[in-house]
């Protein structure tokens, strides 16, 4: 018996990284899972893991930047699984185009960055909202990013889109509350999903770790997060335990956003005598 027995949960970007971790943490507590992203193979891999835990899994190849495909994802889920309890909008492009000066960013890359990271949340939430409103229950969980709360050099689309996700969460939460729909967002810091990242990114992170550089990466607790840190947060937010929680960003970042005034929040020790001198 699990705390999510009988629930049906859709996870976009469920083939890799945080999406896969969430899928397995939720299935272990009894949920049936629908995973949606563009590439079929990673989705099938996650589905095998879910089935190994004895739960139902459905793979729906979907490009979340296409509203028609988002509608189809919801329809297919209802047809095959009979219902939906939670939608997790997790798909996103973590390392998009960066370090390009503003004057060289093309319309196309602007739209791609905004579509994948922000519009997708709108499309999928809109697609499921009428169904949730009619049955007067449902939960939506959006995956934003710490970068949605701070600026970052030359990261126009990602930081803007993720800030948008945070506020879209609030607006949906307030507007849909009367239909008993809860909307929250998860805000990860640096989480180790490297095995799914491009080669050069993996190398850079490995080097940083080897030199103790993660401290310098603004993580006060001194190490990056594990995908399961996010998976279990999703478990709390999917379960009935969080029924009075809505519109809240849940930040899971090793203290990263709490500091920031000095690199990792550490300041030199000064005695009162010195302070008054």
């Amino acid at each position, binding site marked *: 018996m699990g*705390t999510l027995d009988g629930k049906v949960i859709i996870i976009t970007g469920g083939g890799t990284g945080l999406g896969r971790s969430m899928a397995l943490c939720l299935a272990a507590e009894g949920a049936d899972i629908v995973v949606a992203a563009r590439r079929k193979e990673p989705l099938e891999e996650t589905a095998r893991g879910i089935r190994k835990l004895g739960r139902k899994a459905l793979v729906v190849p979907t490009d979340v930047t296409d509203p028609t495909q988002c509608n189809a994802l919801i329809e297919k889920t209802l047809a095959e699984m009979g219902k939906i309890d939670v939608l997790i909008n997790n798909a996103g492009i973590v390392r998009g185009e960066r370090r390009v000066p503003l004057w060289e960013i093309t319309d196309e890359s602007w739209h791609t960055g905004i579509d994948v990271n922000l519009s997708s949340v709108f499309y999928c939430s809109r697609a499921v909202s009428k169904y949730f409103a009619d049955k007067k229950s449902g939960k939506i969980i959006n995956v934003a990013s710490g970068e949605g709360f701070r600026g970052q050099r030359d990261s126009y689309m990602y930081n803007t889109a993720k800030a948008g996700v945070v506020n879209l969460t609030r607006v949906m939460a307030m507007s849909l509350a*009367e239909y008993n729909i809860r909307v929250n967002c998860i805000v990860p810091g640096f989480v180790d999903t490297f095995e799914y990242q491009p080669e050069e990114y993996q190398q850079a992170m490995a080097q940083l770790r080897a030199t103790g550089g993660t401290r310098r990466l603004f993580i006060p607790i001194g190490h990056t997060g594990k995908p399961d840190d996010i998976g279990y947060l999703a478990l709390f937010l999917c379960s009935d335990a969080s029924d*009075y929680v809505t519109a809240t960003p849940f930040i899971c970042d090793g203290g990263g956003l709490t500091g920031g005034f000095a690199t990792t929040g550490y300041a030199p020790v000064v005695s009162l005598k010195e302070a008054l001198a």
Partner: protein
Amino acid sequence: MTAKAFELKGKTALVTGDSKFWLKPIVTALAEAGADIAVAAGQTHKLEDAVEIAKSTGRKALAVPTDITSGAQVKKAVDRVIGEFGRIDILVNASDVNLFQPFCDIKDTEWDRVMDYNFNSAMHFCRAAGRQMVIQKKGRIINVISGLAERGHANGTAYCVSMGAVLQLTKALALEWALTGVTVNAIGTGWFTENGSAADEAIARYIPAKRYGKPYEIGSLVVYLASDVTDFTTGQFMYVDGGLMAHA
């Protein structure tokens, strides 16, 4: 029922504070998740009730009558808990004294009392229990405060300042102990009621969820934050308020 990942079997939790609402639901949730419980609060029926509840779940439970505004008494209380249980894994501070008065009318003694109960008690417990947690290289501190730690409220100066102080204590301490395995987080409560009145109903329409919270709805977040899966979560302020804090 507690999800496996959030179970607290074998852990010791110290729950502190003189508050109308929070002792009972927090103790219930932690004990049901499997933790042994110590409660430090003023010697009242609230302390006894909370301990009775913990016992009824079959967990070990200890009542520690304490003047939580006194640093010396808090230290003694923490020593007693360590003496009985050998360790403290979880500290939940939940003191909540509501004073709402026009700023100029508040007497110095009243102001100090609010600070003593709402802020200084949490500060003393964080230091006394935190010292032990740092030695253990592991610990969870959860300060249950109000959304008014962040927002203002007319006639609420003393209350808002005391809550804001606990929030800043939470953030600074989280960073100071970030490398020790001790996490420090705060929960922002909204409007709660035990048995709804007509007045509550009238106000409830201003809450996005269209209802007051029930005290037990705090317990589940306390359990999550107290569990082993939240190593990467520190310095955070999380709301359980039916959407109140999303207002402009």
